[in-house]
């Protein structure tokens, strides 16, 4: 096996920046294809009328998950060399909650706001500036929250490790969950779409 190619030294840092750019183009392209350059479409997820965010995200997750799993099993990719960010369970959960609030208020996330800004959305540009401001606040207050930020460090933890279950079993479970979720999304959209719940209040 000689993948991940970068980790096996097939190319250096400078080429990796070009790779980053190209991958980024693909990333931005498909985000826009899905309609994520529009805050309205993104926010509609949270009113149950248009669950595109869920469908796209989870399709992407299971595609990459299945692809990586099978490539590793065949031996084309060394899974242990793929970087897994360490789990800091409490700050990640709290951060996620805050991010969720920001998502429904602002209507974008950092990646999609770039797509929105690139397609002319003024609110996308403003959102981007807001993100920078938020990071600034974080950086300035870092000394105060440093300890919380580094708390509950569980290290690199995957579900197979946590539950002691075979990797393949969890792949299957996630696929089932996603397919079930898609069916549920289909039903919710039929029921509440396209304007979503509370649309008349």
């Amino acid at each position, binding site marked *: 096996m000689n*993948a*991940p190619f970068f980790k096996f030294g097939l190319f250096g840092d400078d080429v990796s920046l070009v790779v*980053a750019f*190209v*991958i*980024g*183009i*693909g990333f*931005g392209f*498909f985000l*826009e*294809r*899905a*309609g994520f350059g*529009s805050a309205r479409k993104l926010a509609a997820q949270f009113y149950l009328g248009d669950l595109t965010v869920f469908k*796209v*995200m989870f*399709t992407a*997750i299971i595609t990459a*998950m299945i*692809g*990586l799993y099978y490539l590793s099993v065949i031996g084309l990719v060394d899974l242990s060399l*793929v970087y897994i*960010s360490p*789990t*800091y369970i409490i700050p*990640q959960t*709290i*951060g*996620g*909650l*805050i*991010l*969720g*609030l*920001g*998502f*429904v*208020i*602002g209507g974008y996330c950092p990646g999609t706001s*770039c*797509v929105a800004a690139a397609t*002319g*959305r003024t*609110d*996308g540009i403003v*959102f*981007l500036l*807001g993100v*920078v*401001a*938020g*990071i600034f606040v*974080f*950086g300035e207050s870092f000394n105060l929250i440093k300890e919380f930020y580094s708390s509950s460090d*569980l290290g690199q933890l995957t579900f197979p490790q946590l539950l002691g279950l075979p*990797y393949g079993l969890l*792949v299957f479970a996630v696929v089932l969950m996603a397919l079930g979720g898609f069916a549920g999304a289909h039903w919710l959209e039929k029921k509440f779409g396209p304007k979503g719940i*509370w*649309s008349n209040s």
Partner: protein
Amino acid sequence: MTSQAKAVLLENFDTQVKEHTSVKTAKPYWNPYLAGLGLGLVLLSAFVIMGRGLGASGAFSSVLSTGIQAIAPDHAGSNEYYSEYLGDGTRHPLKDWLVFEVLGVFVGGFLSGALAHRVKRTVEKGPRITTAKRLAFAFGGGALMGFGAKLARGCTSGQALTGGALLNVGSWAFMMAVFAGAYALAYFVRRQWQ
């Protein structure tokens, strides 16, 4: 009607006129599952080529830290968080994988939008709110997002998509929290969207 309602109505009328007289009509969005498949393959290629996943918020931190360093180098250097992104000086902080990736996101997003005639100067908002308010919310929401993303060490691209595909426990917890937070607040900001 109230003057505020009048203002909103006039603005909406204005927008609708603009939209109907645009040169080409926007193409419909792709089937979300196909778009998700494409996204997943991009993510997979990052795994296979680089041994890492995607991201976005890290690039913003790099840019911010570099900016602060340019304006107030001592402050940047003495701040533990910014220094992390500035590195030890052997490499320019903007020569960062995520920075280049995010530049690509701009390009890719524009490309797709241009091909589908979806590029236009506009403000995305619901019918019941003014542009000014929407922009204020966009800024505020962005700020919350920026703060939350740093606290969680990632945003939806880095943590949810990447970590999700890798069965990373913290990332799934993060993902659930994002949906929980957003759904919890959705009712209270509905006027912005509906």
